[in-house]
């Protein structure tokens, strides 16, 4: 207590001056009184006073001791250093500006990227005790999967129920089924993101409602009265105006009234990062009412992997142990249900990873890492520039420092003072960088992938980001200020005072440290630019990939007849009517309806060719199924390689037919033409005959291997949720309005969603290489600029230092051209070494990027060559100016002038 009080007094004392004056008076009085006493004892006046002062221990010394106690000496010294540093920086505005700007760019770029990384990767899910939550996925050792990354596949609802009932490792398990509901409350019907969840969903996540309550355990199981809903906070605020009396009100979803029982806490939007923040949760017992078509049919099927399951580990149980116990349970389930569960087991993933997509999160993490790596390189280059600048400054101030050292300043003090300067620079750079990051976020946001649009990912500069920036700034100042400071504080006294610091040997031997820094800069710039170049090439390649269909003048619109409870007959009629209206609209050349939107993946089933089935142990392949109307191949301009398209004679009563993609034929009947072959789906004995073979087209991802696809006639395999495809003669967007009106007239209650032109869909599919290319190109350019500045600075300084030698050489007969060559040679030597080093490091590290690139090898020679040439020419340019200056040295002036 006392200590704190005393400390505060001393803190105040650091900034006050008046106490000194008062103490001087007190000391004066003390000496007077002592002198008086001495005189009384018989000394003469002079002796008396001298004795008094001696007894005191000296007036100045006492004043100093007092001063040290009155204030906080450390703080005082620090303030002194700061003041001095500021003065020094003000005296060299050019130097200060360049240093602060470079740092601002480097730190700003880092903060910007970190903001995004923080928002998506680090701040995953606002639930209780996230590390104890894991997602359960099925892994299937018997079914072949053609998409490389589809390893973890969700879970079937009946299996989930069994795991939940019998497991020992979890406090509880919950299940989620994301779907879309049509909400008819606003101005027009719209689709909202919804999730069918087990009643314990919120409890497992450990959340408390912001309003109302969450589900009761029996709302999942009892036969009726389960039409209740929980709203997300964003939904409640954005769409319902934060209605304070929302609890108990009814909202219409899919033409059915649901009672709102609660609102989820602010900031929670389910367990998937990339879904919209406006969501509705309903109990899974409503599945029959909400789902339609195949989803409804397969929801309770033990084989169909419909739901996402997750759970909270019991305290003290590790994830590995839990996984092992679940795998044991899986073998029991396999034995109990050999047909459905054959070859299936369970794998766990941390919920934080699964939030980004259980098979995709590694790519996101990698992408985030690459970004941070590149901006880290940019910052490093800026820091190297800073170090170089500080070294140059230190050299320039040699005389001043030497003088201070000669007068008795100890080395530590000098180092500390210089480090204060570099800290000031880096903190200023950090503050400016923060401002850049603030602006940069908006730019970065413009590059976001379209599917992030309404997810409400929060890119605020929260405390973690600010702390990051502060930390980076301070570390920069300390690390990159230390070496120059130490070097400057240890001058070669005799040398400096004699020759004014400008003599010595020529070339880079005199200053190995600065030369090494430039070499390092060049290497770093090369690495950054090679990374950028690879991504730009990848972007180019991605745009050129053949998608298998004509990717211009195509418009799609999605809708869900199941939301309005159309039964099949009415649905088929609706499709025909919609296609008719579309064909008659101006600007529409062709129209069709399909279950799958372009590049949107789709429902997949395991395919067995005729003669094989699940019992024989044959590994069927998970194949995407697309239900289409006959006009489909025409609309999409996908060529039919063999056989025929569907037509009106393919109906429910006629032979069951299918069209297969070339990849599928190749897979099951290699070297045969495929027509007439038959196959069946898992669990469905119906044999379907292939009547046509279509050219390969993209299913889910640009650049994927050719995928097997089964096309079925919509008349034989009806689904209620589908997408209308329009081949337009002009711009796709212009047909949208007419079509919307057409839908309105067909059924005003139908919500139309995902109205996209194919360009927009491609933008979404290609966002990664595009954004990556642009951003990395930007950062690469930044790296280039900064290293050019660095090279220029070092060489310029070097020329200054070598003025005398140059003058000497010229006086001895060297031509201007020789001098220019000499200087250029010095610069080029550094550049070449730096680039060589960079190439070696790049070759070693670029491999990491391969999974993010399209058809570009990590050793792509064109990229390396182009970057090397670019850097060399820029470096040459940067060397040219100082070289010209060297050329112009007047030997008379140089030799005379010290």
């Amino acid at each position, binding site marked *: 207590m*006392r*200590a704190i*009080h*005393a400390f505060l*007094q*001393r803190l105040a004392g650091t900034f006050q001056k008046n106490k000194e004056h*008062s*103490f001087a*008076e*007190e*000391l004066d*009085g*003390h000496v*007077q*009184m*002592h002198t*008086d006493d001495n005189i009384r004892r018989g000394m003469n006046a002079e002796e008396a006073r001298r004795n008094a002062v001696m*007894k*005191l*221990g*000296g007036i100045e*010394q*006492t004043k100093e*001791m*007092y001063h*040290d*106690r*009155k204030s906080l000496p450390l703080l005082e010294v620090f303030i002194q250093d700061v003041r001095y540093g500021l003065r020094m920086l003000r005296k060299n505005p050019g130097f200060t500006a360049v240093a602060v700007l470079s740092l601002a760019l480097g730190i700003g770029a880092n903060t910007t990227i970190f903001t995004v990384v923080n928002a998506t990767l680090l701040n995953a899910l606002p639930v209780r005790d996230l590390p104890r939550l894991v997602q359960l996925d099925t892994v299937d050792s018997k079914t072949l999967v053609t998409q490389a990354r589809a390893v973890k596949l969700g879970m079937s609802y009946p299996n989930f129920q069994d795991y939940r009932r019998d497991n020992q490792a979890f406090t509880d398990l919950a299940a989620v089924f994301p779907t879309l509901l049509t909400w008819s409350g606003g101005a027009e019907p719209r689709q909202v993101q919804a999730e069918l969840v087990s009643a314990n969903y919120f409890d497992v996540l450990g959340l408390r409602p912001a309003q109302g309550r969450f589900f009761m355990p029996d709302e999942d199981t009892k036969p009726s009265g389960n039409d209740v809903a929980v709203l997300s906070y964003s939904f409640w605020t954005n769409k319902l105006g934060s209605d304070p009396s929302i609890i108990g009100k009814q909202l219409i979803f899919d033409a059915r009234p649901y009672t709102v029982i609660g609102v989820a806490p602010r900031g929670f939007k389910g367990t998937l990062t990339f879904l919209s923040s406006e969501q509705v949760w309903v109990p899974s017992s409503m599945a029959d009412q909400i789902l339609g078509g195949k989803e409804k049919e397969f929801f309770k099927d033990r084989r169909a992997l419909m739901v996402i399951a997750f759970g909270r580990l019991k305290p003290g149980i590790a994830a590995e142990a839990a996984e092992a116990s679940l795998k044991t349970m899986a073998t029991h389930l396999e034995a109990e249900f050999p047909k459905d569960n054959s070859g299936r087991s369970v794998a766990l993933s941390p919920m934080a990873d699964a939030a980004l997509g259980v098979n995709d999160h590694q790519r996101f993490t990698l992408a985030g890492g690459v970004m941070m790596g590149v901006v880290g390189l940019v910052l490093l280059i800026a820091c190297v520039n800073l170090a170089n600048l500080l070294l140059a400054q230190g050299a320039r101030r040699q005389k001043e420092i030497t003088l201070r050292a000669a007068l008795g300043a100890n080395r530590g003090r000098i180092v500390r003072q210089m480090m204060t300067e570099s800290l000031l620079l880096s903190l200023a750079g950090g503050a400016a960088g923060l401002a850049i990051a603030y602006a940069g976020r908006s730019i970065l946001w413009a590059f976001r992938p379209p599917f992030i649009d309404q997810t409400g990912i929060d890119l605020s500069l929260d405390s973690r980001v600010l702390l990051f920036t502060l930390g980076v700034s301070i570390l920069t100042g300390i690390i990159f200020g230390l070496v120059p400071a130490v070097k400057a504080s240890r001058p070669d006294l005799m040398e400096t005072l004699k020759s004014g610091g400008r003599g010595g040997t020529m070339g880079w031997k005199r200053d190995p440290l600065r030369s090494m820094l430039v070499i390092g800069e060049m290497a770093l710039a090369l690495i950054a630019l090679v990374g950028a170049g690879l991504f730009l090439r990848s972007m180019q390649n991605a745009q050129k990939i053949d998608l298998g269909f004509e990717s211009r003048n195509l418009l799609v619109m999605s809708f869900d007849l199941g939301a309005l409870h159309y039964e099949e007959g009415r649905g088929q009629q609706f499709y025909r009517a919609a296609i008719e209206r579309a064909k008659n609209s101006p600007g529409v050349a062709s129209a069709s309806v399909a279950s799958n939107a372009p590049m949107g993946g789709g429902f997949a089933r395991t395919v067995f060719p005729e003669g094989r089935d699940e019992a024989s142990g044959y590994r069927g392949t998970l194949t995407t199924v697309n239900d289409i109307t006959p006009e489909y191949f025409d609309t999409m301009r996908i060529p039919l390689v063999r056989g025929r398209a569907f037509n009106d004679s393919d109906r429910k009563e006629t032979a069951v037919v299918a069209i297969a993609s070339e990849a599928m034929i190749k897979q099951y009947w290699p070297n045969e033409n495929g027509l007439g072959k038959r196959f069946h789906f898992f669990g469905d004995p119906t044999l379907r005959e292939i009547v046509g073979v279509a050219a390969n087209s993209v299913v889910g991802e640009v650049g994927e291997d050719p995928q097997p696809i089964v096309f079925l006639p919509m008349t034989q395999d009806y689904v209620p949720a589908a997408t209308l495809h329009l081949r337009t003669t002009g711009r796709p967007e212009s047909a949208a309005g007419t079509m919307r009106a057409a839908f309105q007239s067909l059924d005003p209650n139908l919500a139309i969603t995902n109205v996209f032109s194919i360009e927009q869909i491609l933008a979404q599919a290609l966002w990664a290489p595009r954004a990556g290319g642009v951003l990395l190109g930007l950062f690469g350019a930044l790296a280039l600029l900064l290293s050019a500045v660095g090279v220029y600075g070092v060489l310029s300084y070097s020329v200054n230092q070598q003025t005398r030698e140059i003058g000497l050489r010229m006086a001895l007969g060297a031509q201007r051209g020789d001098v220019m060559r000499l200087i250029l040679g010095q610069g080029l030597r550094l550049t070449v070494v730096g680039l060589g080093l960079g190439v070696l490091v790049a070759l070693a590290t670029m491999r990491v990027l391969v999974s993010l690139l399209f058809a570009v090898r990590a050793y792509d020679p064109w990229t390396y060559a182009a970057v090397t040439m670019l850097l060399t020419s820029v470096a040459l340019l940067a060397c040219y100016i100082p070289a010209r200056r060297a050329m112009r040295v007047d030997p008379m002036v140089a030799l005379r002038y010290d």
Partner: protein
Amino acid sequence: MDVWQGTLALMILKTLEALGPLHGYGIARRIEQTSGDVLAVNYGTLYPALLKLEQEGHISSEWGQSDNNRKAKYYKLTRAGRRFLGREERDWEQTTAILARFLAPGKEPA
């Protein structure tokens, strides 16, 4: 140095308790006298000690006039200072008692 500062602080407080409000010079003389001129202390070291005690709130200061009409700052004990002094006195007595027993082992405790 720290131990010395501690005892110096105590001596100052004790002096003020005994003599009432006093200026720095007077305290210095009194300490020298009381310790039997064994501690030939630099009077200057008193002032930082006085400042510390004032910062910690054990003493307070006030300008006044000395006997020969010299301007001088007078220090006096605060209530907190009095309490602190009492505690420290007890601690010191305990310490010296324990030490005494250690340094004269043969003797029976009284």
